[in-house]
């Protein structure tokens, strides 16, 4: 049981970073990005190629994923998403759903449908701490996620751009009046959001194989995490991630593995129905 809790926390920390990206995009742009999980897939591919051709460990390759996907996200926002920012939700939903299909199948065309995985020396390793087993790849991914979360927090709190992002999220008009270039800020926020998710994808590469359809496994998971924490809340997403990680690994103790996601969906619908504003934020 305690073992399952530890596994859940290690897994959940990474879910947190993945979902933080989605939450950031919604919080700042007000758009639910259904294509978010595809950027996770792209992040995984970048890290895989970095490993395959340059022998770069995915934990370092994740930085490359972050940078490349950030650039891609910035362009996608400025060219496509910016056009529907003021459109009704249906237009936003279908724009990002279309993007999801295009990216997923674009990857299928470019990379083929094979599953690819990396070989790293610590893949099967682990530590024993007080009789409990801590798997090394999960542990390293968790540490990377924590480090990135701290950096994100510093960025949002301490830098001018970070403050601009928060300002735009609160009131875009007021931010403009105070000299913030909102369009550029939207682009940066979207790029940052998808880059966080891509980073999360890269650090889990040592224990999850990548294929063009890997994003599908994460769509509902990501939304569950974000909704648990409150759409738009960055800290909420981190906490939600840990909760979901624990639910997954503990439910696996009692129920067959196929039903793992079933419980997530139930939680997801229940939270949406009872507290759509998330569990953390006050009413």
């Amino acid at each position, binding site marked *: 049981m305690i073992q399952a809790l530890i596994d859940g926390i290690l897994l959940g920390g990474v879910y947190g970073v993945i979902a933080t990206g989605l939450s950031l995009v*919604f919080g700042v742009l007000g758009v*639910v990005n259904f294509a978010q999980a595809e950027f996770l897939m792209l992040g995984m591919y970048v890290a895989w190629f970095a490993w395959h051709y340059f022998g770069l460990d995915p934990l370092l390759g994740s930085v490359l994923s972050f940078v490349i996907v950030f650039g891609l996200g910035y362009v996608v926002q400025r060219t*496509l998403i910016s*056009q*529907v920012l003021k*459109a*009704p*939700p*249906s*237009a*936003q*939903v*279908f*724009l990002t*759903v*279309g*993007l*999801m*299909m*295009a*990216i*997923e*199948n*674009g*990857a*299928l*065309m470019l990379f*083929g*449908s094979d599953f690819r995985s990396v070989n790293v020396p610590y893949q099967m390793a682990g530590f024993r701490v007080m009789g409990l087993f801590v798997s090394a790849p999960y542990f390293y991914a968790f540490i990377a996620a924590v480090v990135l979360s701290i950096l994100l927090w510093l960025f949002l709190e301490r830098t001018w751009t970070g403050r601009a992002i928060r300002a735009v999220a609160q009131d875009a008009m007021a931010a403009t009046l105070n000299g913030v270039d909102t369009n550029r800020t939207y682009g940066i926020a979207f790029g940052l959001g998808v880059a966080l998710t891509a980073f999360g994808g890269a650090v889990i590469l040592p224990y999850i194989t990548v294929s*063009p359809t890997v994003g*599908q496994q994460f*769509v*509902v998971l990501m*939304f*569950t995490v974000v*909704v648990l924490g409150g*759409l738009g809340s960055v800290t909420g997403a981190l906490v939600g991630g840990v909760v979901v990680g624990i639910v997954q690994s503990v439910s696996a103790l009692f129920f*067959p593995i*196929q*039903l793992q*996601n*079933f419980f997530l*969906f*139930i939680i*997801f*619908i*229940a939270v*949406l*129905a*009872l507290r*759509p504003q998330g569990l953390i934020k006050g009413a």
Partner: protein
Amino acid sequence: MRNLLTPGRIAIVLFFVVAALLPFFVDARGHLLRVAAMVLLFAAVAQSWNIVGGLANQISLGHAAFFGIGAYTSTLLYLNLGITPWLGMFAGGVLAMVAAALLSLPTFRLKGHYFALATLAFAEVMRVIANSWAGLTGGPVGLTVPFAGSQPWLFAFRSVASYYWIILALLLAICLVFHLMATGAIGYRLRAVRENEQAAEVAGVDTFRVKLIASMVSAGLTAVCGTVFAQFTFFFDPDSIFSLSGISVRMAMIAIIGGLGTLGGPIVGALFLIPLEEYANAQLSSQIAGLSQFVFGVILVAAILIQPRGLMAFWPKRNATSTTQPSGDKE
């Protein structure tokens, strides 16, 4: 009273007449007729979706759940109890309505993104259940509808034309339901809810009841389409029938590309998309996997950016269903 012979009505009637005569002019067992039948079937599904997505503007991304319920109910009743799919079709419809009612309880207050997310999760739940409850559903292997020659009583025919006409009749029936709902009192209430839910509530519209009726009707009709789909294709599995991009998004996309909330929209959308997809699959898939779906995604993005109101927006006449007074419905 509106004129009975508006250009829009003439176009719709003309469409159905041409569609009904089509099997006499093409090879009755040929591929072309199968594609035409798929066009009609997806027009019918999209029209069912249009009742919730278009009239009430509740964007559902989980209608595959009802589609799958229809396919599974009729097929399982037939395989296990020998009940003809003609009856199973209605059993599936009723079951889907019950499911829609249950889903309405936690989701009726949700709007926009939240509603889309909740419905998406619901379809995923159905997919997971169908995959893991192998004792009932056959699990990931899927179900095959056994074919034993032409048995009209068991919804089995040798000629594609028979299926084609049944699907055409179904489309006609669903279009009538849509038209009646759009122009009837419930249509006014739904549009009132769509424009401003609180104002509608204050004006005396029971918003929960109105939305519940719309989603139940929509779900029931979608399930009937699911049964017909199962009989027509003979085979389905959980991942294809509960698929997000294959079913849920596709039916919404057809309605949106054609014109959300309009009677002709789903027909125009299906006439445009399904042959295009068929062509792309036939021409391109052999070369590069994923290309047709990629094109699909790109079209969706382009459609939203170029004309979010869909192809029907290019129709010269101002559209009757969307320009009638939006609310102010009193009893």
